[in-house]
Structures are given as structure tokens and as C-alpha cells.
């Protein structure tokens, strides 16, 4: 390769980035294809008879792959219920935890139903429906690791999953000297805890129970509860028609007990009283 090639390469690369930015910009500007008349995403969903929902399948008990490699879990079942109530087909858009909001914003999904806890930061980029479930974030770890409160995390290596509620909660309460490391999905965080690569890890109480049940030898226990939060469906900013439908949908399914039933089936815990958003 000579110098000219490199200059050409640099120019091509720079042009490529600019083109990429422009393409993403226009793609975003076009999606979702706005309906010509009043309404928008909701009308399109009903017209196309298809609802595209994010499906995070590495986060038990909210989303997993069953023995036939099909999505399953409480949030998957919730999404199916929403599609049933809309009278449309469902399309599961598989995402990893960190992709949940980007996939929604990029128009790959119409609604995100992937145990998204309601937080200020997220509310700046997406619109939340009223909560349809609750979860506790705990610090879990092997019995031999001595942690009783947040202060005991000093000097310990704590694993967290990116783009989760634990990532939004734990760093703020960790004392100086806590070594926090990040993984891309909860499966990797669990594996790091079980193999001893981290002393303890932050995750939902359900995830901690699930990893403890599957690895009895590791003697995983909950050290302390960091926070209890409520999760909800999220839509793109501006999709008020879809948001209003979701509000109505949560109201009806909370009153008829369907939400509590789904929650109990997958988490083996009774659903607490859901606050109103």
C-alpha cells in the first residue's frame, strides 16, 4: 500500500461516515412511516395487523428462550397479551439489554416491553406507560463473600449488566474503592459471579434466585436489597396514540387480574399493588 492509497482510503472512510450519519438521520426521520391522516403508529399497527415488540431473551424470568428456541417469559407473555388485546399478530424483535431503547428509537420495534424500569434518564428519551410489574434489585454473591450492606462493597469486585436498573442504582450507592465491572448481558454477569470472576453482582431478585437454583454448589445468596422499582412498556416520544392505548390496556388488565396472573406464573411471587403513572 502506498501513501496515495491511504489518502484515498481516508477520504473514502470520512465520506462513508458522513453518508452513514446522513442515512441514519433520514431513516430515523422516516420511521415510523407516518400515516397520512390523524393517528400514527397505533393506526399503522391495526392496519398492518402486526405489532413489533422488543424481546430480550437473556433475562429470566422476564425473557428467555424455551426448549424449542422460542421466546418465553413474563414480558414475552405480556407482549403476547397486548397483541391479543389489539387483535394483531406479534413480531418479536430480539434485542440485548443495551439495545432495548435504541431498537425502539430506531423504529425496529413499535413498543419496548422488556422489563424496562421507569427512571428519569430513560424518561428523557422514551415515553413510559403505567407500570405492569415490579422488581427488586439485589446484590447477590456466594455465601463466603462477606457483604451485608452497601458500605461492605468497598474493595470488592462487583459485576453489573450494562443498561439495566442495577447499573443505574448500584454505582451511586457504592462506597469509594468499589471495583465495578460491566458485562453486556445478564448471562455473562451471572457466569462471572458463579465462576468467581467477581465477588458479587447486582441483578434482579428473580435473576439471583434463578442463578442460585441452577448452581446450588455456588451457594448464592442475596446480600441486600438495593432498590425496588416498577417496570413498564415504553414507546417513542410523540407516539401518544399508542401510549394512550397502553394506559387503557394496563388499567383493564390490572383490574381483571391478567397482569397479576402472568407475573405469578413466571416469577412465583405475588404481584404487589402497582402505583399509577
Amino acid at each position, binding site marked *: 500500500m502506498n501513501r496515495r492509497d491511504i489518502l484515498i482510503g481516508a477520504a473514502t472512510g470520512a465520506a462513508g461516515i458522513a453518508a452513514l450519519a446522513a442515512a441514519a438521520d433520514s431513516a430515523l426521520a422516516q420511521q415510523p412511516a407516518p400515516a397520512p391522516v390523524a393517528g400514527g403508529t397505533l393506526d399503522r399497527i391495526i392496519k398492518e395487523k402486526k405489532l413489533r415488540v422488543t424481546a430480550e431473551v437473556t433475562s429470566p424470568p422476564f425473557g428467555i428462550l424455551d426448549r424449542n428456541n422460542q421466546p418465553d417469559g413474563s414480558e414475552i407473555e405480556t407482549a403476547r397479551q397486548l397483541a391479543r388485546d389489539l387483535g394483531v399478530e406479534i413480531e418479536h424483535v430480539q434485542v440485548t439489554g*443495551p439495545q432495548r*431503547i435504541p431498537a425502539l428509537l430506531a423504529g425496529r420495534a413499535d413498543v419496548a416491553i422488556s422489563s424496562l424500569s421507569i427512571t428519569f434518564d430513560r424518561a428523557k428519551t422514551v415515553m413510559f406507560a403505567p407500570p405492569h410489574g415490579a422488581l427488586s434489585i439485589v446484590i447477590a454473591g456466594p455465601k463466603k463473600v462477606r457483604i451485608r450492606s452497601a458500605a461492605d462493597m468497598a474493595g470488592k469486585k462487583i459485576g453489573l449488566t450494562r443498561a439495566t436498573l442495577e447499573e443505574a442504582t448500584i454505582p451511586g450507592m457504592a462506597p469509594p474503592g468499589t471495583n465495578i465491572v*460491566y458485562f*453486556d448481558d445478564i448471562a455473562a454477569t451471572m457466569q462471572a459471579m458463579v465462576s468467581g*470472576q467477581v465477588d458479587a453482582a447486582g441483578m434482579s431478585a428473580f435473576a439471583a434466585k434463578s442463578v442460585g437454583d441452577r448452581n446450588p454448589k455456588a451457594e448464592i445468596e442475596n446480600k441486600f436489597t438495593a432498590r425496588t422499582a416498577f417496570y413498564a412498556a415504553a414507546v417513542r*416520544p410523540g407516539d401518544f396514540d399508542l401510549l394512550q392505548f397502553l394506559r387503557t390496556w394496563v388499567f383493564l388488565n390490572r383490574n381483571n387480574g391478567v397482569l397479576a396472573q402472568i407475573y405469578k406464573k413466571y416469577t412465583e411471587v405475588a404481584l404487589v399493588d402497582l402505583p399509577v403513572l
Partner: protein
Amino acid sequence: MKYVFQFGIVWDHLPQLAAGAWLTLRLALGAFALGLALALLLAYLRTAGPKPLRAVIVAYVEFIRNTPFLVQLFIIYFSLPAAGVRFDAGEAALLGMSLNFSGYATEILRSGIEAVPRSQIEAGHSLGFSQLDIYRHIIVFPALQTVYPALASQFVLLMLGSSIVSAISVNELTGIINTLQSTTFRAFEFYFVATAIYLLMALCARLLLDAIYWWIFRRGRPAGGAWAR
């Protein structure tokens, strides 16, 4: 809906991005040095070692080149602790990248070594060179020149491929970018910037590698003749 780009937030995190890029560079250079050293040894044994050893090296190279890097990394980071061998994330990343690179580099060097004419090696023997001197001066140096472009490409691949080690919690450029985008929700801005940084690093690496080639192999050599490119 129109997405509003907000690049301001990216500049707020410039020190973290720089630290990530620096770690990416260090990992790539470290793995290149370690991997190449291992590959030089393996390539030598692969061509001149005893038969059973050659078979082992062939198996090693095929294993490295025919399994996903991510899986190799997971074995080192998640599975080896079960056998009592524990590396922290940075060590596991460096080890994984070095081993992975050595697999490809061994194969590249082998092709270069086999391209050295037999008669030159025989000439070395008849001039009384030791086996090591023959390997150093007659085989490796010209072989390195022959395969230099391939090795240089492989280095760039190694540097870009290092993004995978973020999966085991290493805070190199991709790890930093993933954490930042997941806490700020400015995925597009951060990924664009990451792309630009990687592109810049790759192009700089190519320029530098070109200069090194010239410095090692061309400097002071007469134009044309045996050293012509």
C-alpha cells in the same frame, strides 16, 4: 419523528474515550508482540520440528482459526477458573488476543518460510551457518518481508477485533462506548464517534506500518535487484 443529534455529550466524555482508545492500542500492540513471538517459534517448529510436534502445531492452528474468538475468550475467562486458573479480565483479553493472533500469524509465516528458495538454505549450510543463523538470516528475514503486508493487515484486524473483549468487562474503546451509550442513551452519537476513532486508528496504524516496512526492508538497499518490491 426526527432524531436530534447531540454531540455535546460525547465531548464531555472525551477523557474516558481517550483512555479506552489507549487501552485498545495497548492490547493490540501487546497481543501483536506476544502473538508474533509465539508464531515465529511455532512456524519454525511447524516447518523444521519433529513430526509429532508438527501435528500438534497444525491442530493448534486449526483450532484457533476455526473457532470463534468470543468462545476462545469465554473459555479463558469463564471456564479456566473452574480448573483453578484465574486471569482477570485484562489478562484474559491479552492472552486470548495473543493466542488468537499467533494462530493466524503462524500460518502467514509458514507461507513466507515455504516461499524461501531451497537453494538459499542449502547455500547457507555449505557456508557453515548454524541452524539458528540460517533460520534468522536466510529464512525469517526474507520470509518476514514477503508476508509483511499480510501481517500488517492482520494487525489491523487484531486491533479492530479487540472490540470483542468488552464482552468480558474490559474497558477498552468499545466497552467504554457501550457503557456511555447505555447510561446516556445517546447510542447513535457514541457509535458514530467510535467508528471514527477506530477508522482513524486503523489508518494511522497502516501509515505507521508502511513506514516501518520502509525503514526495515528498504532503507539503504540499492534500488532494484533482489530487494526490489
